[in-house]
C-alpha cells in the first residue's frame, strides 16, 4: 500500500481570492462541526473537505484531530491510507486512467503510455500549465466498454489515444474560454 501525493504541485497552493467569504481554516472547521456527531464521521469529513478545497491541507489535520478527539498522527495515518485523498492541490482537472484488467484487455496500457507522453507527466503529477493531474484508477465499472477514463465526475469509454487527445483539447479550450469569460 502506498500513498501518492503530487510532488510537482507542491507549493502551488493558490491563496484564496479576495472575495472568498470564508478562510480555509474556517471552511475546514465548518465541515468538521457539521459532521462530527455522526457515527464514524472521519471519512465524511475528509470527503467534505476535499470536495470543497480540492485537497486536504496540512492545516486540516489538527482541526480534525481536535473535533474527533483523535491524535494528529491517527488523522494523518488515515488520510495517507486512502488513495482518494490528496494532501496537495491538483491541477484544474484530474484525469484518472483505468489500469485494471478489463481495460488492459482492450489497450489500456497503450492508452496510459500515451496519456503520460501527451501530458508530459507521470502518474500523480500535474502538467506544466497546471491544467491536468494524471492519476491511475483501478476500475470505473465501465469494463465492457474500455479503455475507460474519468475526468471530474464524467466517465468516458472506448478511449483511443486519438479520443484522449480530442478530449484534452476540448477540456483545455473550455477551461480557457471559461476563465476568459470570468475576467473582465
Amino acid at each position, binding site marked *: 500500500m*502506498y500513498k501518492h501525493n503530487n510532488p510537482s504541485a507542491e507549493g502551488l497552493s493558490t491563496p484564496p481570492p479576495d472575495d472568498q467569504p470564508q478562510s480555509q481554516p474556517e471552511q475546514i472547521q465548518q465541515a468538521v462541526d457539521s459532521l462530527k456527531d455522526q457515527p464514524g464521521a472521519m471519512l465524511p469529513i*475528509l470527503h467534505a473537505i476535499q470536495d470543497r478545497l480540492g485537497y486536504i491541507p496540512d492545516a486540516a489535520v489538527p482541526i480534525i484531530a481536535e473535533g474527533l478527539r483523535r491524535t494528529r498522527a491517527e488523522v494523518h495515518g488515515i488520510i495517507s491510507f486512502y488513495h482518494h485523498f490528496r494532501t496537495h492541490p491538483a491541477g484544474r482537472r484530474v484525469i484518472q486512467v483505468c489500469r485494471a484488467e*478489463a481495460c*488492459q*484487455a*482492450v489497450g489500456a496500457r497503450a492508452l496510459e503510455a500515451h496519456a503520460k507522453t501527451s501530458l508530459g507527466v507521470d502518474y500523480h503529477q500535474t502538467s506544466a500549465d497546471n491544467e491536468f493531474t494524471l492519476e491511475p484508477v483501478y476500475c470505473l465499472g*465501465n469494463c*465492457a466498454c*474500455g479503455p475507460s477514463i474519468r475526468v471530474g465526475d464524467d466517465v468516458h469509454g472506448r478511449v483511443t489515444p486519438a479520443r484522449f487527445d480530442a478530449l484534452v483539447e476540448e477540456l483545455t479550450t473550455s477551461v480557457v474560454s471559461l476563465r476568459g469569460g470570468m475576467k473582465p
Partner: protein
Amino acid sequence: MTVTVYVPRDTTALSLGADPVAARIEQAATERGVELKLVRNGSRGLFWLEPLVEVATPAGRVAYGPVTPEDVPALVEAGLFEGGQEHELALGLTEDIPYLKNQQRLTFSRIGITDPLSLDDYTGLRGFEGLKKALTLDGQGIIDEVKASGLRGRGGAAFPTAIKWQTVHDEPPGQKYIVCNADEGDSGTFADRLVMECDPYMLIEGMTIAGLAVGATQGYIYLRSEYPLAQKIFNEALRRAYAAGYLGENILGSGRHFDLEVRLGAGAYICGEETSLLDSLEGKRGMVRAKPPLPAIQGLFGRPTVVNNVLSLAAVPFILDQGGQTYADYGQGRSLGTLALQLAGNVKRGGLVELAFGTTLRTLMETFGGGTLSGRPLKAVQVGGPLGAYLPESQWDSPIDYEAFAAFGGVVGHGGVVMFDDSVDMGEQARFAMEFCTVESCGKCTPCRIGSVRGVEVIDRLRAGEDRDANLELLSELCETMVDGSLCAMGGMTPFPVQSVLKHFPDDLTRSRGGAPC
C-alpha cells in the same frame, strides 16, 4: 400524439455519449413539431449497443443502437418517432434481442425498462411487494424464506446468506446493523453499479427486509468513490423513498423502523473485504481484522452486523415476493438461483448476463459474448476479479457454479468475466497481479505486503531472462508462502492468477525479452 423515447443514463451509456444523443433527439422532435416524452431510463445491460435508444410502439418497445449523436438525423428521417425499422441501427423489439431474451432476469427484471427514480415504475413491476410480504412475517419467517432460496453471498465468498442473517438474528436485541458492500472493486464487474444506478429501490427494499429479519434499524451502504453517478442517483432514491414512507420510523404505517445512509469509500480495494470495510466505516484506516469475532457477532462499532454484497441483498425482494422455492428452482447443486455474469474486456458483446447457475463459460463467451472484440482468437479469461485465476481453453467447458469452479481452482467471485485475445502477454498479467497487491495491500501481514513486492521483482527478472529455473522456483515458493501465510484473501489469493500463468502459460513468463523493461 405523444411519442415516448427512452435514452439510458447509466455510467456506460453516458460514457458513450447518451447525453448528446438525447439532446439531438429532443432537438429533432422540436424541429418536426413532434410531442416528445423523453425518458432517461436505466441501461438494459446490453452495453455493446449503448447508447441504446428505444421508442414505444403499440407492439412494444423497439430498439436502435449503438446510436451516436451524428446518427440521429438519419434515424429520425427513417422514421424513429414512428418506430420505423428501415435503418441499419434498428434492432426490432427490444425484448426479442436474443442476448436479452435468452437470459433469466430475476434480479435484473426491471433494469432499463424503468425510469430508475420513478416509484410508480418500480411498484408497477412488483416493486415493494417483497417488503409488504416481509411485513406480514416475523424475523424468523423472513429468514426461513431466504433459507429456502439457497441464496449464497454474491460478493465473493459465497457464504449462505440465511445463515449469516440467522446469527445476527439470534444475538440479543440491541443495536444491530445492515451493511451493504457496494465497494465493487473487481475489474470486470459492474452489476452492483447497475443495481444502484438503474433499480435503486430494489436495494433499498432488500436492505429493509434484511433489517426486519434480524432486528436492525440502521443500514449503511459503503459505496466506492469511483461511482459518483451511482451515489447521486441512489441518494435521490433514498430521499424519495423516505418521502413516500418506505423508510424511516414507520415503514408503510407498520410501526417498523429502518434508516439508510450512503457512505463513500476512498479508493482502497481492500475496503471491499468486510472487516476492513467496517473499520473504514468506523472512520479508521481500512485494516483487515482477524476473525473471529465474526462481524455477525461483533461487527460495526462492535455490534452484530450483516455485511452483504449489493447483489445478495438485491435478490431478496424477489425471494420474498415469489417465494424462496421459486428462486431455488433455478440453478444446480448447491449453487441455486441466478448469477449476474458480467462480460468484459476484449469481448464483442459485453454486458450483463443474468443466468441460472450451470451454463458453461464457453457458451457465455461465444453465444452471448460473440467472441473477442478484436476478432482475434480468445486466449485466456479471468473470472472472479483480480484475485481470480486466468483460465485457458481447457477449462472453458466446465459449468459455472461454485463447486465446479472450486474443483479446478477457479473462483466465480462476483461474476466478472474478463476476456483476452491472443495478443495478451500473460507474463505481463502475472506481473500486474503482484503489482496490484503492492498497491492495495492493507499492510498488516508480511507475506502480502512484502511478498507482492518480491513477486514483482522475481517476475521482472524472469522476463529479463535471468536465471530461469531458480527464479521459477522462487516464484512458486513465494506464491505458496502468500497463500499459506496471509491473513485475508488479498494476499491469500493474489497468487491464483500468477500460479495459473505459471501452469498454463509458462512460455509467456519465461520468454526472454532481451532485458527490455516491461
